């Protein structure tokens, strides 16, 4: 293990790895990534794979528009297939109020170049013939949304970062951060100390613990909540191509994996704050019920697995990204709720720009870590699951 590095990133999930890769791409390659387990074992490998630009606020729409541009070229850029497919996102809408609010979102999305639109229940059934549209009065549809493989994406970012000189240490836990006179001196790990002047907190569900280690004096509320996912046995390819979402049915979302053929998804049941991620029977029943409501044919399909993972939540459901002013060269990118996987490419790019160039054209102000202390909550990000 290196005893000194210019930058130490704490957290080997998709966010930490994307930041590491993007820093190295801008020639800041003296970077070490610390991961207390194996890469991706936090939230990233437990996610629902979805990637969407259908948000209800300007910042998330612009961030995701750019992220999707990066996702589109990621296979070429990183040299490994991440199985990104633009199979779309379909939000089922059941009453006038829901329809109106999605119409408003679609107008905003269109303004920033996202080609979403409101479609009829009949059109929704053309996209997913197995759909139960009882009670559906319309749907919000964007064909450039999609999904990717989190296992492959983590692998691809890690390999590309290593090729550019980044060092990644698994089973290496940050235990303490030495700060003197407002500047970082070192990160203490279970395998020894690394001298460094810059730390990036990418520990998501554990981010508050890292802030505590450094003595961050601002209140940045990020709490871990248990959410769960389910996967069925493979069904005939091409049955449920887009991500289908229904807020009416408890925030249920589901899609068929492009290469594996199983149906994957979850719903809004959550527990916490907690660091326990044991899967629950309540979820298994609840998710089966909701899947069968949306796609009745799924009644005849076997569930093969459920699992738990974290949503690292802030009070407004948006991440905290940026610099902590009181500690020189301490940055945070954490608290991604249910949309950190999709945001990872643009978050890595934006934070690397901020660090290397001192500025970025992405709307990072929206994710200002100081907003809670100022009592300035953002509009709640559109959440699923």
């Amino acid at each position, binding site marked *: 293990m290196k005893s000194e590095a210019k930058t130490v990133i704490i957290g080997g999930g998709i966010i930490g790895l994307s930041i590491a890769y993007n820093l190295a791409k801008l020639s800041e390659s003296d970077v070490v990534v610390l991961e207390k387990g*194996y*890469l*991706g*074992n936090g939230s990233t*490998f437990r996610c629902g794979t979805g990637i969407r630009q259908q948000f209800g606020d300007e910042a998330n729409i612009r961030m995701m528009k750019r992220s999707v541009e990066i996702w589109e070229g990621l296979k070429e850029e990183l040299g490994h*297939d991440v*199985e990104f497919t633009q199979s779309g996102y379909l939000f089922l809408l059941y009453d006038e109020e829901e329809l109106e609010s999605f119409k408003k979102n679609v107008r905003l999305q269109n303004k920033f170049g996202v080609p979403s639109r409101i479609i009829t229940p009949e059109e929704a059934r053309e996209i997913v013939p197995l759909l139960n549209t009882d009670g559906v009065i319309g749907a919000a549809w964007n064909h450039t949304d999609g999904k990717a493989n989190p*296992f*492959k994406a983590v*692998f691809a970012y890690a390999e590309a970062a290593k090729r550019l000189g980044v060092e990644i240490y698994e089973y290496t836990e940050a235990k303490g951060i030495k700060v003197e006179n407002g500047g970082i001196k070192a990160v203490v790990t279970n395998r020894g100390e690394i001298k460094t002047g810059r730390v990036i907190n990418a520990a998501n569900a554990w981010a508050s613990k890292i802030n505590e280690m450094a003595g961050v004096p601002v209140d940045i509320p990020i709490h871990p909540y248990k959410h769960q996912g389910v*996967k*069925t*046995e*493979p069904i005939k390819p091409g049955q449920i191509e887009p991500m289908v979402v229904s807020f009416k*049915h*408890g925030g249920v979302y589901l899609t068929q994996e492009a*290469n*594996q053929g199983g149906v994957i998804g979850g719903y809004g049941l959550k527990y916490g704050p907690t660091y326990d991620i044991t*899967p629950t*029977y309540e979820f*298994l*029943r*609840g998710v*089966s*019920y909701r*899947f*069968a409501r949306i796609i009745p044919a*799924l*009644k*005849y*399909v*076997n*569930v*093969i*697995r*459920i*699992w738990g993972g974290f949503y690292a939540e802030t009070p407004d459901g948006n991440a905290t990204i940026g610099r902590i002013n009181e500690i020189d060269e301490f940055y945070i990118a954490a608290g991604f709720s249910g949309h950190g996987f999709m945001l990872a490419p643009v978050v890595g790019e934006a934070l690397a720009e901020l660090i290397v160039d001192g500025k970025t054209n992405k709307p990072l102000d929206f994710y200002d870590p100081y907003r809670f202390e100022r009592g300035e909550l953002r509009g709640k990000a559109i959440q699923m699951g």
Partner: protein
Amino acid sequence: MVKMTENTGDPREKIIICRCNDVTQKEIEDLIDRGITDIEEIKRLTRIGMGPCQGRTCIPLVISIIARKTGKKPDEIPVPATRVPVRPVMMGVLAGEMGDDDEE
């Protein structure tokens, strides 16, 4: 699924370790050769143990490959955690236990 490595005609490409997800002995050995010896990581990169059989066939085979290639004893290699449902169950059976009043 998309393979992690190209086909080269190596005989180990014909030996299937995981029948659910069609993973060969070569794919697993290639990962171990690049330093990935953690069964949880191998599982997530290749999908061994994640198909309908939930690892009943492949996990013991993979443990023996890891043991052979790394010189570890098989009992030193942690077995992946099993999760409910241990056997596949139909969604309709699970859903059927819920009344409509469970819906919000």
